[in-house]
């Protein structure tokens, strides 16, 4: 028998984080966006224990301020792209700068410095990854996806897909389907 599961990565990670914090007996408040408020300052040993337990899940405690802000930018973008309730009609630069309370210029410079890519490219990458997921898992047509992700036209989405990956959405779909067939043999 074969089953398919659908999961929301964000809730999975939050749950894992919360369980681990409970296990280490650290009193805490979850603030969302990967931010946690710990009560008091736990001993070095406790923090090391926490870091070790989290590393099992490849969750990392971010150390310096720059990385923290970059992570917040990424989380905001991912939330913006994947969460349909969000209003994508606001320009992403405005949205980021308002949500994170810094000028867009500052955020953009910092982002490029740390991640080797620009905020614009990161948004495109996330959208294309989401498109791949929707094609494969939800079986949506490109027209439906273009509408869902707020592209002005199917052509625009299709061009951006080709430009980012070097292949067209339909050959992507064909390749993945052929791979699956190969696995069955």
């Amino acid at each position, binding site marked *: 028998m074969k089953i398919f599961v659908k999961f929301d*990565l964000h809730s999975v990670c939050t749950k894992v984080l919360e369980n681990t914090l409970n296990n280490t007996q650290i009193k805490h408040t979850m603030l969302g966006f990967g931010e946690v408020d710990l009560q008091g300052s736990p001993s070095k040993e406790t923090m090391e224990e926490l870091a070790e337990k989290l*590393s099992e899940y*490849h969750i990392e405690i971010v150390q310096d301020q720059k990385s923290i802000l970059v992570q917040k930018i990424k989380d905001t973008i991912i939330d913006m792209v994947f969460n349909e309730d969000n209003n994508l009609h606001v320009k992403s630069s405005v949205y980021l700068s308002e949500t994170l309370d810094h000028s867009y210029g500052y955020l953009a410079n910092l982002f490029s410095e740390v*991640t080797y890519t620009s905020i614009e490219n990161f948004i495109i990458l996330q959208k294309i*990854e989401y498109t791949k997921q929707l094609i494969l898992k939800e079986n949506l047509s490109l027209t439906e996806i273009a509408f869902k992700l707020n592209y002005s036209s199917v052509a625009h989405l299709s061009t951006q897909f080709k430009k980012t990956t070097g292949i067209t959405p339909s050959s992507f779909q064909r*390749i993945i389907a052929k791979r699956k067939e*190969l696995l069955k043999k």
Partner: protein
Amino acid sequence: MNENYINVVLADDDEDDRLFFSEAFDELKIKTRVSTFNDGVYLMDYFNSEDAILPQVLFLDLNMPRKSGLECLKELRADEKFNDVAIAIYSTSSSEEDVENTFVLGANIYIKKPSDFKSLKKVLSDVVTLNWQYHTNGLNKDNFLLRL
């Protein structure tokens, strides 16, 4: 934990290509450690040895004596140990059939060997930067396909 350099391996029987490749990587913004192998047999011997350090990206020439890139690709994708290694096919051929076939067999990237140094640098930079995004953002590598 999250070290700021990328391990890269190239298997190619052409000495000039290996040299160009290493030089191009030296000039990139992202820090890389490059190891090269002269053919598929040396490469697979190394990968199957116990102290092998698996790279984030492997560049495979399709046409090599003794063991071709295609044979290496099949062997690597049949072993779960290599799941995290992104495989880039690095070839002079750009036939649609070759491209699609290697993708189906599990390659993530297909690069038509550029003819000049400047485009080689650009292509390699694009590959490692994108791979870095997949690596650091936990993106689904099963869906990682890139053709340059």
